[in-house]
């Protein structure tokens, strides 16, 4: 699974520009689904039909987003520097001197104009990308206004932990792909959806959920890990604590029956788990549960340090627990469980 995580996190795919990551995932899931399709917003939907075509099967939608945060070029100045705006939640304090890459492979570095006063707050309009061009014409040969860049960083394993850009949410995609490999049959009809544009407002999940209208929704995404030195632990999730079962985040109150089922399943199979509350963030689950007349939805999260930076860190214990929990959940007869 480590190679899979490396391949996925190192692929380009900021919101609205997911073609390359979609092609990569298509390769990874070849032969693992009965039907694979792409919808209008670019969501990749892989359908795994239920074991029996005679009995009524619950429809489950499992979602992880393919897109990552990035930058969009708003202007190319006379000297060939690129002005930018953000795609998704960019933290101005952790982007300086990072490398970025465009879809055509052009690499650059992000820097900022010198502050007028030392304590001045950071501003997006003071940032620029330097692609090493000597002038506007040279820059325009490689990029255009409207082109999009993502972080350019390789994935590194540190024992049982890994750091990479776009763990949010390529780790969720990797977990879903592992589940597709391990889950030979299921009594449920499962839609594995690799969604687009989550970082800019859960847009892919909104339209995908409408089209599928599942009986049960499960999002797989990262959550914050609050076990680093500078924080008094105020929220519960920690690296190595197991699969983080969502209770509440900024956009979703997990359906109590779904949360209960996840906890019971983890306990019954001795899968390490923890309960997850996140204050400043949400997932595709928030879009799924408000679809049409409402869909019972829960989230399995991977605790992650340094979310929305170029070096996000996860623990393989939590990743493996998430895979195991999801496999066990999807193996249950969810019709009989009331979904």
């Amino acid at each position: 699974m480590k190679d899979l995580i490396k391949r996925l996190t190192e692929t380009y795919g900021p919101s609205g520009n997911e073609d390359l990551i979609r092609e990569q995932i298509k390769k990874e899931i070849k032969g693992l689904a009965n039907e694979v399709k792409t919808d209008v917003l670019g969501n990749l939907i892989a359908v795994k039909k239920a074991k029996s075509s005679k009995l009524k099967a619950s429809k489950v939608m499992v979602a992880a987003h393919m897109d990552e945060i990035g930058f969009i070029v708003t202007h190319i100045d006379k000297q060939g520097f690129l002005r930018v705006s953000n795609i998704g939640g960019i933290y101005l304090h952790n982007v300086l001197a990072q490398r970025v890459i465009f879809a055509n492979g052009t690499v650059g570095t992000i820097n900022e104009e010198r502050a007028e006063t030392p304590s001045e707050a950071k501003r997006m309009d003071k940032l620029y990308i330097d692609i090493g061009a000597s002038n506007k014409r040279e820059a325009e040969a490689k990029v255009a206004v409207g082109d999009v860049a993502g972080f350019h960083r390789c994935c590194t394993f540190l024992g049982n932990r890994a750091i990479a850009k776009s763990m949010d949410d390529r780790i969720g995609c990797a977990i879903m792909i592992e589940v597709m490999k391990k889950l030979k049959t299921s009594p449920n009809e499962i839609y594995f959806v690799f969604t687009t544009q989550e970082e800019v407002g859960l847009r892919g999940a909104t339209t995908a959920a409408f089209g599928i209208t599942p009986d049960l929704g499960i999002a797989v995404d990262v959550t914050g890990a609050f076990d680093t030195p500078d924080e008094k632990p105020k929220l519960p999730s920690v690296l190595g604590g197991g699969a983080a079962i969502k209770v509440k985040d900024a956009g979703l109150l997990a359906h109590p029956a779904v949360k209960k089922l996840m906890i019971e399943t983890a306990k019954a199979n001795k899968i390490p788990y923890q309960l997850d509350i996140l204050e400043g963030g949400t997932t595709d689950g928030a879009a799924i549960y408000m679809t049409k007349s409402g869909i019972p939805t829960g989230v399995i999260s991977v605790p992650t340090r340094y979310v929305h930076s170029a070096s996000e860190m996860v623990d393989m214990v939590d990743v493996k627990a998430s895979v195991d929990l999801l496999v066990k959940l999807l193996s249950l007869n969810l019709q009989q469980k009331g979904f």
Partner: protein
Amino acid sequence: MIDLKLIEQLTNAWGVSGNENQVRQIIRKQIEKNVDDIRVDAMGNLIAFKKAKSSKRKALKVMISGHMDEVGLMVTHIDKSGYLKFDKVGGIDDRVLLAKRVLIGKDRIPGVIGVKPIHMIYRKGEHKKVSSHEDLFIDIGASSQEEAQRWVSMGDYVMFDTPYEDWGGLIKAKAFDDRIGCYMMIELLKKRYNFDLYAAFTTQEEVGLRGGRVAAYRHLPDMAFILEGTPAGDFPQSQVKDVSRTPALGKGPVITVMDRTVFCDKGLIKLLTDTAKANRIPVQIKRPGTGGTDAGRIHMTKEGVKTVVLATAVRYIHSTVGLTSKRDVAAGMKLMEETFKKIR
């Protein structure tokens, strides 16, 4: 040739968000003989339908959309001395309000947003402060609350008093955002195409894309073109930094790649830019990452709709007066007409 008389009628019309009736009547009168069906939905959106030329095989469904509403104000309180307090409807910079002429209610009672004359500024720097709209008032010349209440009421809509004017190459009016889009849609509805055409004239875009949220639901189109007004940045600005001032007047219609609400469909962007190139129509790319339009809601309808925004640049948008270029409006029309010839 663009129809300046119609643009004048549309921009002078009364239609702050939630009160689009007069604009809707004008549009209805203009299009009813040219379309096969007209309906007004629960949100007040005017939705017109024009069947494809030949019904031999299943035709594509194309949607065009523009909003009827404009930004304005609403009377919230009439004080004892007959002055009116107001709230903003839509996004307006408080700085544009001082000393402006307005029209209130359906009788268009004239008023002025008063400002303290410079002779009376005693505190140092007071005139440099920006007054919040909450501190401002409208003066209709009434000397008491009772007198004011004979003319206006709480809840009355307030519109900017800016009559249309032809300045030669440029035209001046209020509400180019988005009566210019409505104008283009009226013109496009005059022809019949090789696809089924739905035209949605929406309401309440300026207060949260509300009409747009439902406009595409019943007849989910295969593609949608949102026709809008967009801010032009080609006026003198205090900073001389080279950090982007596009779009500019006279440089052609403006295509959105990404704004705060939508990533426009790459295929539709290419269709527009290729058509522009083939017909030697200059186009500009809207500064990515700013603003929002009905496209933000339309592209998320049901299972998703391929959407693109084509706009006319307007200087001083969302203020009491805007300027746009006749050449840009004509170029935008030509681009849409040529693009529609290619769709079947």
